[in-house]
């Protein structure tokens, strides 16, 4: 479970997060939905401890990442905002490297690596150097790196950007499969269809605050709109009506 309480964060004069609070439960997919600049990436970076909040806490299974970053990160699989691959290493070598950094060793390491490569159907590219990989192939490697150690929590920052239909489907199937296994999944997006198709709960963010929380259908009902997109626009646009 990921528990975010009263997070505030400012960069010089810009207030990125303003008393943001929400929780993401185990066995559920929680979507962080917001327009560009709403503070989604900042929020996720605070959760995995690369940024420090001015006030408030973010806890993973009760562990605060800004106090015990190493313990917190052991619980996490991360798919960051920007991910680069090591172009001179093969996909398998990269996944193995991060498996080792997560503390896996010996046969367990080798098995985990093979398993995750199998699951993401990337056997064809596993032993190729990653220079020249397509966007979809890169996403697979990044996802494999994030979940090689089978973390209880998965944080993804706009994972589907730049992906074609096939790659998006693989990603969705993967996330549903992980949810069925009880993984707590938190992902940010500004793509409505994706959130509607995938999320159990949606946290709508605007200007660093929570504008609304609920399942996609609940949000539609709340605003009286039939499509989530319209609901979203209504929520973001009239923050005194619904967000209050």
């Amino acid at each position: 479970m990921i528990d975010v309480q009263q997070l505030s964060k400012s960069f010089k004069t810009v207030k990125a997060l303003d008393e943001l609070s929400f929780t993401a439960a185990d066995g559920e997919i929680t979507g962080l939905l917001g327009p560009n600049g709403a503070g989604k990436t900042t929020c996720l970076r605070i959760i995995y401890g690369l940024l420090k909040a001015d006030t408030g806490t973010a806890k993973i299974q009760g562990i605060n990442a800004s106090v015990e970053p190493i313990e917190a990160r052991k619980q996490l699989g991360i798919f960051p905002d920007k991910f680069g691959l090591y172009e001179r290493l093969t996909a398998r070598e990269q996944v193995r490297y991060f498996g080792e950094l997560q503390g896996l060793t010996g046969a367990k390491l080798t098995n985990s690596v093979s398993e995750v490569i199998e699951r993401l159907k990337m056997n064809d590219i596993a032993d190729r150097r990653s220079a020249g990989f397509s966007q979809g192939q890169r996403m697979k490697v990044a996802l494999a790196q994030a979940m090689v150690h089978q973390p209880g929590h998965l944080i993804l920052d706009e994972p589907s950007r730049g992906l074609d239909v096939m790659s998006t489907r693989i990603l969705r199937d993967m996330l549903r499969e992980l949810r069925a296994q009880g993984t707590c999944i938190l992902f940010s997006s500004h793509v409505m269809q994706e959130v509607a198709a995938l999320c159990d709960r949606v946290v709508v963010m605007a200007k660093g605050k929570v504008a609304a929380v609920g399942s996609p259908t609940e949000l539609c009902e709340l605003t009286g709109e039939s499509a989530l997109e319209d609901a979203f626009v209504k929520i973001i646009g009239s923050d005194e009506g619904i967000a209050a």
Partner: protein
Amino acid sequence: MSTLLTIWKKELRDAIRDKRSVLAAMSYAFFGPALMAVAFFFLISQLTDKEDIGINIHGADAAPEFVQYLNQQGIVEREKPWPSGTTPIDLTIPASWDEDLRQGSPVELTLKADWSAQKQQSDLERVEQAIRSYGSQIAAFRLLTRGIDPRVVTPLQVNKQDLATRGSKAALIMGSVLVFILMSVFWSGMNVAIDISAGERERHSLEFLLTQPTSSFNIVTGKALAASTFALFGALLTLVIVPGVFAFVPLSKIGMSLSFAPHMLLTMWLLLVPLALLAAALQLFVSFRAKNFKEAQTYISFLLIVPMAAAFGVEFAKVKTPALFYLPLTGQHQAFLSMIRGEDVNWQAALICSVITLAAAIGLYRVIAKMLRSEKTVFGL
């Protein structure tokens, strides 16, 4: 500890597959000594050159015998014009030569030249030497005609050889070789150091690496070890190649010998180990602050000047203070200097210097690790 090794192994594998890094590490060792040897080869042949010296001789008619003597010594009337930028060497023989000699009064010869011109130094030396020796021949004759053994006026026989300039040239050569060896650890690992720090940031893989459950000190140290490994590989190549190349330089012509025994090379390499760790620390410190590869390269080129200036400065400014034996870089330099001169090495100082160098390196790793925990450095805020 094990994550440290994991990072070291991965960075090493990554770097070995990078042709640019490998080439950079090896090019220094392969091309550097060869270039230096060629330069010294010309320097030495210039120094030991016994070609005729062409100078302007005015009033040669007044003293044909003297001019003939000069010719025998390889000093002749110049036929070619002086190259531009060179001050001519002018020797003027007065018309009163015969007259003065007959009366036993000194003949006033005028020698006009630029004594500060490096290239003409040995030419001038030879001209002066020839004039002096002709003068002492005349003196000897005069004494003989008066029935006196000329040896009574030279109670001390000085066998003067032109060692002044050669000695300094020998020191220049030796000093340059040492500085060159020292710089190998700064040069050979440079490309790797940039690639694993600024390059990592540019490729956007730094953020993910920092979200791994391992301390940033482990990350920094693992990376520094990889860069140092390359640096030490370059240093090893340099140490192996330098003696081989210098075997072809006629150092004996200027009365100098550079002998590198295998155990001496090994000792030098061992002394370079802490220095390589420090070099990697400095390079990582600089390039983790850069936004991309290019920017880091610019900063690091400046960084290269610092040890080079320090080494050359100590070498040629003849600074002498005991602190030099203990400070990083200069300490190794002093130890190498003693070794190459065949003197006793101050092992205690060399050891203390190694410890200080190592401590400085680890201290810097800690600083960089702290830098990587700060959001300002990581995201360039």
